[in-house]
C-alpha cells in the first residue's frame, strides 16, 4: 500500500504550521519597540532564559497554576501537554534505538508501529511505555469530553462557546489519540507489536484486515494535519504563544498603555481555561458575556462591543486568578483607549495656584470630598500628630485622573496628571499623602513624582503609630476588614491596614481576603452597570464580609465605604475614622 497517504498529510500540516508560526512571531517581534528588542537581546544569554525555561516547564507542561485553582482541570491540561510531549520524545528514542542511528526520517517516530514490525532489543519495554503514555493522554481526552458535556463536573460554572473553526480543531485534537489507539491496535493485531493496551482490548473480537489498518493510519495522519493547520487560527494558538510570552515576560517586557504586538501576544496566550469566568463577580448580576476570556476572544475576532468592553469593574480578580498571568486589566484599558481615542477634553480652566511649602502634601481626591467624615478624620490625625502639611485640593481641586485612565481617556488623564503633578512638586513636600486608593494607584503608576514618597493613609498612620507620634486606644470591638481592589490587588497593600486595625480592635478573618478579596461593586472602572446590578454584586460581597458577625466593617477607601453604607445595619468605617475616633493625644 502507498505509504505516501500516511506520511503526506502529517508532513504538509507540520510544515504549514511551522511556516505560519515563524512568520507570526517574526512579525510580532519586529513590531516590538526598540527598547523591548534590546531587552530580548540583553536577556538572552543570562539566567533569565533559564528561569523562563523553568517556568515553561511548570506552567506550559505541568500547568501548576491551574492545579492550584482546580486540580481536575490541571490534570486535564497536564495530561495533554506532558503526555503528548513524552510520547514524542520517547517515540523518537524508540525509533533511534531501533535504527541504531540518529538519522531517521522525521515521520518514522510518529507512525513507528506502522513501519516497524520487527522486534529489536528493548522493543517490549518501549511498547509498554508508549502505551502507558497513550493511556495517560487518553484519560485527559476523556476528561475533556466530560467537561464539554457537563462543565460542572469540574466545579466550573461555565465553559466558553465554540466557533465552527474552533470546533473543527477541537474534533481533530480529540480524534488524534483515539485514532492512534485504534491504528496501533490494528497493527498489533496483524503483526503482534503492541504493548499492554494496544495489543489487547480493541481488536480482540474484531477481524482486522490490512485495509482497515491502512485507513486508520491515514485517518490518524489526517487528524494531525487538520489540527496543525487549524491551530494558528484557533484558541490552540495559545500553546506555542504562551511559551513565547513566558520568554518575553522574563526578559522584562511590560505591557504598554497602547495596544501593541506584545498585547497581541498576551491575547493569543489565553488558553480559554475559563478560570477567569469563575473569578468574576458579574455573574451575581446575571452578566455572563463580559468576562476577560470573552474580551480576549473578541479582540482576536475583532468584534468587541463597547457594551462589553466598558462593563467591567476592573477589580482585577480575574487577572489574579489567570494561570497564564495575562495583564487582563491593562489589556482591557488598552482597548478602551482604542475605542475612545476620538474623544476631546479640555481642562484649561484649571489654575495654577502657587502653593506654600510643607513637609507633607495631602491630596483628598473627589471621593474623599464626598465623604466629609473621612476628610475630617484625616485632618484630625494629622493635627494631633503635629504634621506640617498642606491640604492641596482643599477648596478647588482637580480629579487625580484615574477614572479617566480607567475609561481609556488617556490624553485627558494626562492633562490632569500634568496639572496635579506640578502643584505637588512645587509644594516641596517629601511625602504625598492620599486617602483614596483610586488616587493612590494613579499617583504610583503614572505620576513620576521622583523622590516623593507616596503614602496611603493606612500606611502613613501606621508609621505615625510606630514613631510614637500618635497612640491609639484599643476598643476591643471585632472588626472585619475589606480590601479595596485598587489598594490590595492594585497596589499590593494588605498588611499595613490590618496591623493598624489590630491596635484598634480584634480582626476577624473572612473567606475571601487579600488577593482574593471581593469587589464592593462601586468601582468607577465600570461604566455600564446599573444600580440594581451593582446592588446584587454588593449583597454577595457583604454576605461574605458579615459572616463572622463583626461589630465594625472597616475599609480604607471612601468609595467602598460609601457603597457599603447603604446596605448594612452595622457600622461601616474607613480606617481613618477609626483611628481618629480612638486617637489619644500624647
Amino acid at each position: 500500500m502507498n505509504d505516501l497517504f500516511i506520511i503526506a498529510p502529517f508532513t504538509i500540516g507540520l510544515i504549514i504550521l511551522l511556516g505560519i508560526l515563524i512568520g507570526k512571531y517574526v512579525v510580532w517581534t519586529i513590531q516590538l519597540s526598540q527598547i523591548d528588542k534590546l531587552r530580548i537581546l540583553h536577556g538572552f544569554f543570562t539566567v533569565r532564559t533559564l528561569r523562563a525555561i523553568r517556568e515553561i516547564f511548570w506552567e506550559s507542561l505541568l500547568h501548576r497554576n491551574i492545579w492550584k485553582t482546580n486540580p481536575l482541570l490541571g490534570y486535564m491540561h497536564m495530561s495533554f501537554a506532558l503526555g503528548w510531549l513524552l510520547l514524542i520524545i520517547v517515540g523518537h528514542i524508540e525509533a533511534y534505538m531501533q535504527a541504531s542511528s540518529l538519522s531517521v526520517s522525521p515521520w518514522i517516530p510518529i507512525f513507528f508501529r506502522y513501519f516497524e514490525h520487527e522486534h529489536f532489543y528493548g522493543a517490549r519495554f518501549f511498547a509498554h511505555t508508549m502505551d502507558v503514555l497513550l493511556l495517560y493522554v487518553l484519560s485527559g481526552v476523556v476528561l475533556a469530553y466530560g467537561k464539554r458535556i457537563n462543565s460542572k463536573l469540574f466545579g466550573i460554572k461555565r465553559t466558553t462557546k465554540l466557533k465552527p473553526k474552533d470546533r473543527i480543531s477541537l474534533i481533530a485534537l480529540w480524534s488524534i489519540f483515539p485514532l492512534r489507539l485504534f491504528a496501533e491496535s490494528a497493527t498489533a493485531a496483524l503483526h503482534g507489536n503492541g504493548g499492554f493496551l494496544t495489543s489487547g482490548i480493541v481488536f480482540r473480537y474484531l477481524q482486522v484486515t490490512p485495509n482497515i489498518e491502512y485507513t486508520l493510519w491515514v485517518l490518524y495522519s489526517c487528524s494531525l494535519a487538520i489540527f496543525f493547520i487549524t491551530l494558528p487560527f484557533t484558541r490552540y494558538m495559545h500553546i506555542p504563544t504562551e511559551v513565547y510570552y513566558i520568554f518575553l515576560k522574563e526578559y522584562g517586557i511590560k505591557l504598554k498603555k497602547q495596544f501593541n504586538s506584545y498585547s497581541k501576544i498576551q491575547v493569543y496566550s489565553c488558553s480559554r481555561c475559563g478560570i477567569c469566568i469563575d473569578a468574576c463577580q458579574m455573574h451575581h448580576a446575571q452578566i455572563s458575556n463580559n468576562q476577560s476570556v470573552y474580551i480576549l476572544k473578541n479582540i482576536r475576532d475583532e468584534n468587541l462591543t463597547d457594551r462589553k468592553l466598558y462593563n467591567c469593574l476592573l477589580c482585577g480578580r480575574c487577572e489574579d486568578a489567570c494561570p497564564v498571568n495575562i495583564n487582563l486589566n491593562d489589556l482591557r484599558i488598552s482597548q478602551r483607549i482604542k475605542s475612545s481615542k476620538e474623544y476631546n477634553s479640555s481642562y484649561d480652566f484649571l489654575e495654577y495656584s502657587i502653593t506654600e511649602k510643607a513637609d507633607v502634601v495631602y491630596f483628598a481626591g473627589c471621593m474623599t470630598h464626598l465623604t466629609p467624615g473621612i476628610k475630617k478624620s484625616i485632618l484630625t490625625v494629622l493635627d494631633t500628630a503635629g504634621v506640617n502639611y498642606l491640604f492641596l485640593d482643599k477648596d478647588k481641586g482637580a480629579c487625580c485622573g484615574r477614572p479617566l485612565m480607567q475609561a481609556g481617556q488617556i490624553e485627558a488623564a494626562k492633562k490632569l496628571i500634568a496639572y496635579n503633578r506640578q502643584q505637588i512638586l512645587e509644594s516641596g513636600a517629601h511625602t504625598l499623602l492620599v486617602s483614596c486608593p483610586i488616587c493612590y494607584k494613579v499617583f504610583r503608576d503614572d505620576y513620576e513624582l521622583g523622590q516623593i514618597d507616596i503614602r496611603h493613609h493606612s500606611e502613613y498612620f501606621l508609621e505615625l503609630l510606630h514613631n510614637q507620634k500618635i497612640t491609639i486606644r484599643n476598643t476591643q470591638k471585632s472588626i472585619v476588614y475589606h480590601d479595596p481592589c485598587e489598594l490590595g490587588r492594585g497596589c499590593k497593600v494588605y498588611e499595613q491596614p490590618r496591623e493598624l486595625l489590630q491596635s484598634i480592635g480584634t480582626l476577624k478573618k473572612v473567606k475571601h481576603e487579600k488577593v482574593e478579596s471581593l469587589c464592593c461593586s462601586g468601582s468607577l472602572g465600570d461604566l455600564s452597570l446599573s444600580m440594581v446590578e451593582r446592588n446584587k454584586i454588593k449583597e454577595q460581597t457583604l454576605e461574605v464580609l458579615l459572616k463572622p458577625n463583626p461589630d465594625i466593617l472597616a475599609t480604607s477607601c471612601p468609595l467602598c465605604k460609601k457603597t457599603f453604607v447603604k446596605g448594612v445595619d452595622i457600622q461601616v468605617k474607613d480606617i481613618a475614622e477609626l483611628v481618629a475616633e480612638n486617637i489619644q493625644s500624647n
Partner: protein
Amino acid sequence: MMKQFGYNSLKSRTIDYKNINTTLISYIIKNEPSFSSCISCGSCTATCSAANLTFFNIRRLNIQIRLGEFENIRQEIDKCMLCGKCLLVCPRGINTRNVIMLIKKGLVTFNLVE
C-alpha cells in the same frame, strides 16, 4: 447673570417640537435607559468636581440634549473629569458617567458638531 446659567443658548423662547433633533437623546436612552428617569434635581451639578471650578452644569446639558441643541454641549462636555461624584449622589441611580461617555461618542458618531 442669567447668561451664566445657560439661558443664552436658547436662541428663541419658542420651542419647535416638530423639528427637534432627537438623534442624540435617542442614542443615549437606548444605551443608558436610566437617563430617562432624571428628575432634574440638580444634585449631580451641586457636587460636580468640574462645576466647582467652572459653569459646567450637567443638568443643563440634559435639557440641551433633549432640545437637540448641540453647539454648547461639545465644549462643555470636555470639562467632565469622569470622577464619579455625580453618580454617587444621584437619587435616581442614573449612570451619569455613561451618559457623558455616550454624549461624547454620540457627537462623534452622528457628526453633530464639526
